[in-house]
Each structure stands twice: as structure tokens, then as C-alpha cells.
């Protein structure tokens, strides 16, 4: 960094966090030239390191002129894509926050706006951890949903919804009943074919795949009303989750011989590890239909995990549970995300849970996206409060 450049004391590398600390505080961007000057310097700086960085940006007291926003956004996006691993922002003023969010919804980037530097650093740590676990940088989204629309006769269940899910994160979808959340999961898992739009999973278009083909790619899901095989034992139910991984010949399986036996034992070991993980050893031989509701949901979760998914879709996993049971399931979801780096899309109504464990939240209402962002951003978004969280009387 050439000392003496206008911005050199506003840019600081924090090696230990692989982060470039950018101080926009009290800066004014009033013309396109200002923006260019800044970003040219930044690009030159980052090029010199030939590495990628996270960005921690302090916006306190920063002003950006109305007509300069588009250009500012363009340059920022370019730097992010070329040199960046992810951005967290803090100290954003209220009007600027509105602008950033609106742009995030349209342009499909993460706003990642936080109140204080501490919160921003914590979020940064999460981003880094997920990258360490999954080995994938967070600019590559695992799943991209582009302008998906679904109609049932006269009912428009989804109207052109777009969003992106990053690898290794816990992504929640919330919204009033009938907003289209389960429909969205059904589209992602290949159960519905959208009338318009694309689903891009692991970089390739998957829009028109059938459900079992999607499952083979590493997507697993649970259902809103438990869909276990009631007459089978818990162990057998979870074993069915391994079906796609089983390669067997009818004859060898029937004779229980050689490779068939070995495979079955491997699958059994994998299932036992999941049973241990979800702490359901005591009920492994019990018929699924005789279990209390909360345990049935846990067995559902186990069955979904048995497929070793990259993406796990959970449809209201905590419905009908009391506080303690919800905490247990929340803990398991966090453990799954932590231990195996599984990306999780969660539909849930309990706001407390959603705010606590999600890294990113999408709000649907009447089939359309009305807000998107970190839990903190969404909680205070006026549109969300109006539609879903309730107006203060």
C-alpha cells in the first residue's frame, strides 16, 4: 500500500482473520470519481496479495450520494467477486440500510448488516468456520433459486422467488401459513416442476429433475406431518434412508452372502452412528407408530441424515413441541451443521428458534419474497413486521 494514498490509513489487513478491515466512517462519496478512486486503490492493494479476503466494513457516518449508488454497488460487487470471500457491514445508518437491503433483494447479494463491530466480527467468524468445515468459499452458493413460480390452477403458490443458499449455512424460510414455503421445498426437492425459473444446485441446472434424481444428488428432506413407516422399527425406518446408497444384487442379498453381508453391516454401522448422534438408542427396536410425536420427528430426522445429504430440507421440525423438546432439536440441528457441514434449509414458525440458529432468513408472503437478510435485519424490517410478526397496537 503506497503510503500517502488518500485511503491508506482506512484499509488494514487482519491476517489472523483473513480479513481486510475497511473504514468508511465519516467518508463521503459524492461523485463517481470518488468511488473509482477508492476502489482502484483497493483493487490494486488486493491484487498485490494474490489472495482472497473477507471484508469488514465500518459505515458509521458515511454518506453516499443518491446518483452514485449504482456505480458504488457495481464496483463493490466486482471487488467482492474478484478478491472476496464474504462481506460483513456494521454501523449502517437507517436510510442506507434500506437502500442496501433493497439492492440485496434485487441483485441477490448478501446484505450482512449488523449493529456493532462485535456482532459483525462474530458473523465473520461463522462465515470462516463454515468455509473451514466445508472447504468451499462462501461466494459459491450451493443452491441458487432463480425466479421460480408455481401455480396450481388458479392459485399462484410462488411468484418469481429468487434467493441463494451458501454452503454450510442454516437458511430459514419463514412466513404466514400459505405463503408458499412448503411449495418452495417441494420445488427444490423435485416434487413440483415450476412453471417458470431455474434451480441451480452445485453449479448445474436441476430444474427438471425428478424427485429421486434430486435425492441421488445429495438432497434429503423431512415432512411436515411425519411420514415414517408406522409398522417398521425405528432401525428399519432409518435403514430405508440408506436405500440410495445400497448396491446389491437380488441373489446375493437373498442368500446373505459375501458382499451383500458386508454392505449391510456397513450400512448398519452408519445408521448406528446416527442413532448415537441423535440419542435414540433406547427406542431402536420400537415400532415407529408407537412412539410419541416428538420422537417420531427425531426418527424422521435420522432417516434424512442416513442418506448423508449435502443439503437437508427440514419442514417444520419443531411443530407441536414444548420448549425443552425444541431446544433439543435445535441443538441437534446445530450439531449436524457443525459436525458434518450439512447445509440446512429450515421452515419454522418459532421466531425464537429461527433467530437463534439461522445464519440467513428469507421471508415469504403470498408466494413472494418480502424480505431477506440476517436474523437481526429481518426482525426489524417493517415489511416483515407488518405481514408476519404483527403490528404494535
Amino acid at each position: 500500500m503506497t503510503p500517502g494514498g488518500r485511503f491508506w490509513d482506512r484499509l488494514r489487513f487482519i491476517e489472523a482473520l483473513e480479513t481486510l478491515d475497511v473504514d468508511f466512517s465519516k467518508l463521503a462519496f459524492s461523485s463517481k470519481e470518488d468511488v473509482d478512486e477508492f476502489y482502484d486503490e483497493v483493487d490494486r492493494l488486493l491484487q498485490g496479495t494474490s489472495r482472497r479476503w473477507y471484508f469488514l466494513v465500518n459505515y458509521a457516518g458515511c454518506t453516499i450520494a443518491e446518483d452514485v449508488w449504482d456505480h458504488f454497488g457495481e464496483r463493490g460487487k466486482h471487488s467482492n467477486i474478484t478478491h472476496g470471500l464474504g462481506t460483513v457491514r456494521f454501523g449502517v445508518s437507517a436510510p442506507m440500510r434500506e437502500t442496501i437491503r433493497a439492492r440485496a433483494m434485487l441483485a441477490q447479494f448478501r446484505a450482512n448488516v449488523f449493529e456493532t463491530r462485535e456482532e459483525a466480527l462474530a458473523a465473520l467468524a461463522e462465515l470462516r468456520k463454515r468455509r473451514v468445515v466445508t472447504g468451499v468459499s462462501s461466494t459459491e452458493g450451493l443452491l441458487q433459486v432463480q425466479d421460480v413460480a408455481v401455480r396450481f390452477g388458479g392459485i399462484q403458490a410462488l411468484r418469481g422467488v429468487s434467493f441463494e443458499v451458501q454452503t454450510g449455512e442454516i437458511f430459514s424460510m419463514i412466513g404466514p401459513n400459505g405463503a408458499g414455503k412448503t411449495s418452495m421445498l417441494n420445488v427444490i426437492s423435485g416434487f413440483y416442476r415450476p412453471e417458470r425459473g431455474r434451480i441451480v444446485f452445485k453449479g448445474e441446472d436441476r430444474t427438471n429433475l425428478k424427485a429421486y434424481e434430486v435425492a441421488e444428488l445429495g438432497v434429503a428432506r423431512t415432512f411436515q406431518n411425519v411420514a415414517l413407516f408406522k409398522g417398521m422399527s425405528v432401525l428399519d425406518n432409518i435403514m430405508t434412508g440408506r436405500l440410495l446408497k445400497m448396491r446389491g444384487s437380488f441373489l446375493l442379498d437373498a442368500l446373505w452372502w459375501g458382499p451383500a453381508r458386508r454392505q449391510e453391516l456397513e450400512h448398519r454401522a452408519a445408521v448406528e452412528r446416527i442413532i448415537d448422534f441423535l440419542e435414540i438408542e433406547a427406542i431402536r427396536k420400537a415400532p415407529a407408530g408407537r412412539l410419541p410425536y416428538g420422537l417420531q420427528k427425531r426418527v424422521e430426522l435420522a432417516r434424512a441424515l442416513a442418506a448423508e445429504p449435502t443439503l437437508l430440507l427440514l419442514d417444520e421440525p419443531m411443530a407441536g413441541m414444548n420448549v425443552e423438546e425444541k431446544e433439543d432439536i435445535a441443538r441437534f440441528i446445530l450439531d449436524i451443521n457443525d459436525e458434518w457441514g450439512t447445509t440446512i434449509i429450515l421452515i419454522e414458525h418459532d421466531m425464537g428458534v429461527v433467530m437463534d440458529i439461522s445464519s440467513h432468513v428469507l421471508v415469504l408472503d403470498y408466494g413472494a419474497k418480502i424480505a431477506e437478510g440476517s436474523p437481526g435485519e429481518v426482525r426489524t424490517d417493517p415489511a416483515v413486521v407488518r405481514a408476519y410478526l404483527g403490528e404494535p397496537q
Partner: protein
Amino acid sequence: MTAITTAPEKRPAAPQVAALDPALDTFPKLVARNATRWPEKVAIREKDLGIWQSYTWKDYLDQARLIALGLASLGFARGDKTAIVGDNRPQLYWAMMATQALGGVPVPLYQDSIEKEMQFIVDHAEARFALVEDQEQVDKLLHVKEQCPRLEYIIYDDPRGLRHYSQPFLMSLERLQELGSKFAMENPTYFEDQIATGRGDDMAVICYTSGTTGVPKGVMLSHKNLIVTAQTAATQEGLRRDDEVLAYLPMAWVGDHVFSYAQCILTGFAVNCPESAATVLQNLREIGPTYFFAPPRIFESILTNVMIRLEDAAWAKRKLVHFFLDVGQGIERRRLTGRPVPLKLRLLYALGRPLVYEPLKDNLGMRRVRLAYTAGEAIGPEIFLFFRALGINVKQLYGMTESSVFVAIQRDGEARLDTVGTPIPGVEIRISGEGEVLFQSPGTFQGYYKNPDATREMMEDGWVHTGDAGFIDHDGQLKIIDRAKDVSRLADGTLFPPKYIENKLKFSPFIKEAMCVGQGSTYVSALINIDLAAVGSWAERRNVPYTSYTDLAQKAEVYDLIYPEIVRVNKSLSEDELLRGAQIRKYLILHKELDADDQEMTRTRKLRRRFIAEKYQTLIDALYSDVDHVAVEAKVTYEDGRTGMIRADVRIRDVETLGAPGTP
């Protein structure tokens, strides 16, 4: 053998016992012997990934060797302590032996200890190393590590959830054993040399007893203490190498240390570790142990479980089982009081075997039990009779941490309901002038760690003061009445042994815990905890709806249910001239269960009377006034240490008392 004296006399030190063979006077040496003599015999099993994984004595030694060498490579010195925390796991038992092999002392802690308790013990014991089971224990220790300045390393067995922890002093057991392998290459005979340096008088373990009053005390037991006592009991009771034991009681409790560690190593029998706390009863069925210990409340819960399930059975089955259970209990009652058993009953019993007794025992997993013991509290007569009637040889024993457990055991054929047995060889028992039980034994502890005052108090003039009031009956068996310092008197001088009365109350399947108060007052009253399972099941059958424990506890119907139980106890008390005046006049049902997490009980479920009396002062005052209900608030501590409040309106009921038997 037993001397009934009332005048305290000066006695010489502990009775002479044959000296131990120096080649086998410590547990590591004994394990080495086992590995040579019976290398292929199964020593310990664990249910992992759904199947029972076995480890032989050779495996035991090899694994412990790697752990020990790993510790040595981290600088473990003779005399160092290792804190051990977790459920019963082979790895933790190996860690104990590894510590002892290096001349160190393992300090086991209760796996459900809260952080404050852990910090006290780890710091007091000056443990440099901690070997724990899983993330839960690691997290607790990490929170208090600052306050344990001597703690240097935390080693964990189950890596789940610990992948991102980056503390340098934290490592997996796997890694520790890798370090051990490396250390072995440079020091090939280190392990064997260290073991050879050990002596019988070295400290083998420090078991902290959480006293009913005051802070926990570290009971120091030497190898000799444990080996002599455990071996004497094993020989007397006929333990065999092919016995099977289920290790389900906490490792921090001296009983588990004696059954699952000391006796296991001495005799060579196999110890089985259950999969998790929730699967213990299932694992009991799978293993079918031959040597079984349970405190009375576990026997009671097994019985309650059977009775509840019986209520759901078909009419014919129910009638059949009840009939034969009565037959069995009738026979056992006669046998225990020495009366002859008529032929008809004996024939019925033989018929009952294949129909009821054997299938029921099989269902409970107790078909192969040759020896079953209970201790710690008085056992309810129905429970004792139930199990004996099935043909399970349940016997009572008496002991404490400070005596390496066994002081007295009921021998085969001498099982009785209200006594705790005769002293084992080498133990002498005496009753002091105040009626306190004193003993001398080769298992007597070496003292309380860093607490010479308490040690002195406990061991005056060579005899250990048990703190229990009791006497030796005409058969030479020891009978325990109550904790000596809890026995008090009412205002009119009537003897008031609270635990004695509480035990009678707890014989009822509906009453889980009870505390009697009344010292210095005009009458005795009781605070009752109902048993949620039993009363809940009863309520469901009678269509009495309830939402929670607090709600159920205050139902009028439940008070009505408990009433006759109290009258039953009063009737029993009225038959004893000394205790007639101690009948219960009022009772209330507590709105929350007494709990160790709330400091109301110890981890072994002994009541902390003074603490409870303070905490529930409002309730006790109400019991001694004229009100028939009182509002109360209580603080509760959840398992993660957070606190909350429970509010309730508690009823108070009067109970009739009876005059002397025969009077109207």
C-alpha cells in the same frame, strides 16, 4: 467377633490381617497378572454402535499402558491426581488403572455434577490431569478452568462436537495414546518399572463424599484397603471368574469402584457398560448379570414398573400373576421369620416357577442373578419380599465410603428384612454408649484429603464413628435405626428418629421421598414427594387430569390417596411404645421434587435436612399453625445451572393418630 459393650474402651489399632503378597499388592500389578493368566478372557464390554464390543484382560492392560505412557509423556509424576468424569466407560476404567500404574491417584467425579461442584473437587484434589467422556464434561471444565490453576490437561474420549475446539491443553484420548506409543519407543520398560514401584499402602483412589452438611470430603483409600476388603467379601460370598456385572452406578460412588473395578480385577469377572442412561433396563435384559447391586429405590422402581405394566395386562394374566406373587411372598415371609413352609405352598411355588417367576425374572433381566445386594437405606418389606419371592437372592449389606464399602453383609440363608447383616471377617463392630455404631476394619480409610480435623473427628481412639444409630440384635445381626445426629426428641421427650419414619413412608409406591420434621415440637409432620410415574398412572386410570408435577401434587384426590399411607405408618408407630408419640399429625405434598441440583439432596440422594428446613421454612411454619393451605415460591436450578421459580398453593392435611394397639 461382635462385642456388645456400652463403656467406651481404649482399643488397639485395626485388627491384624494377613499381609498381602507384595507381587500383587496394587491394582496395576493385579491387572498385569490377569493379562498373563487369562489373556483371552473378556474383562469389560461396552455397547457401542448397537452391539456389545468386548475387551479382554490383555486388551485392558495394553490400552491402559498406552494411556499411562501418554500421561507420562505429558509429565505425569508419582503422586499426581487425575480427575475422571463421565458415564461408565471402559476407557475411563483403563484411565484409572493407568493413573495408578504411574503411582498417581484417580479422583472420580459424578457425571451430573454442576460446574461449581466440579471446580471445588478438581481444585481441592489438586488434579493436574482430567480425563473425561465427552463434550458435556469438557465444556463444564472449560468454564471453571480458571479457578483450577493446577489443572494442566483435559483429555476426552468421545470427539463428537469437539472438532473445532482449539485449546492447546485439550486433546483426544486417541492422541494421548499416540503420544504414549512414541514414549514407549524411547522408554520401553517405563510402564512395567512404574508398576513395580507401587506398594499396597499407596493411595489407590480419592472418593469425594458430598456430605449432607458442609463441603465434600475426599476419602483416601489405599490399594490394601480395597484389595483386602473386596477380596474378603468376594471369598465369603463366592464370587466367580465367570460372573457378569452391569456397571450402571456412577463411577464416583465407592460402590461402583469396589464392584466394577476392585472385585472385577481381583476375581477376573466381566463388567458390562450400558449404552446410555436411558437404555440401562434394556441392557440389563441383554446381559443377564449374575452379580447385581442396586440401592432400594432402584429395586422399588423396577417393582413399580412391573406393577404398572401388569395393570395393562389381560384380566386372566393379572389374576394369575398376583396369585403366584402372593404365594411366593407368603413363603418368603415364613422363611424369613423361621417358620415352616407347608407342603401345599411349596407345590404351588413349583407350579409358579414356569408360569410366573421364571418368565418375570427373564423379563427383568434377572434370571441369572446369583447374588443381589442392596444397601444405603432401609428397603420396603413388599419390595424385599417381591424379589426374594421370585427366587432372586437379594441380601442387605452395610458399609460406607470410609470403610471401602463392606462392613456387614447378610450371608446366604440369613437374609432378614430389618437388619443389615453380620460383620465380614476382619471387621469388628461396637456400639457406643450413645448408641452409635463404631467399627474397625482393614478397609478403614487413610483419612480425609487435606482435612485432618474431620479425619480426627471421624476416627476417635482407633474406631471409626459411622454416625449411624443402631444395635446388634439377638441373632448377631446389625440393625440400623437412623443417622445418629438426626435422632432427636419431641417436646414431650418422645424419641424422634426421622429417617426411620421416612423409610416407612417411602415403602408406599406412591411416595418417592419424605422428610419428617418435629424436633422440639409437640408433634411430627411430614413433607411428601409423590412418585410421578406411579401416581401419574393411578391418576390416568381414575380420569384425574393433570398437567405437571406441581399440578398433580396439589390435587385433592392425590392427598386422599396418600392419606391411608400415612395412617399405615402411624399404625406401625403406634405398636412401638417408644415411638407412639411420634406419629404424624399433619402432612403436605411438596410442589416440586427434592433434587440434588437444587442442593436439597446429595448426589446419592440423602436429604440435606438443615438446608431443606431453611428453604421451606414457610411450609414448616404453616404445618405448625392452623392454616390448611399456604402459598409458596421455590427456586429451582436446571441441569445447565440456570435458575427459575416455581409457585404453588400447597394444601395441608391433618391425619388421625392411633392409641396403643388394643385401645379404641
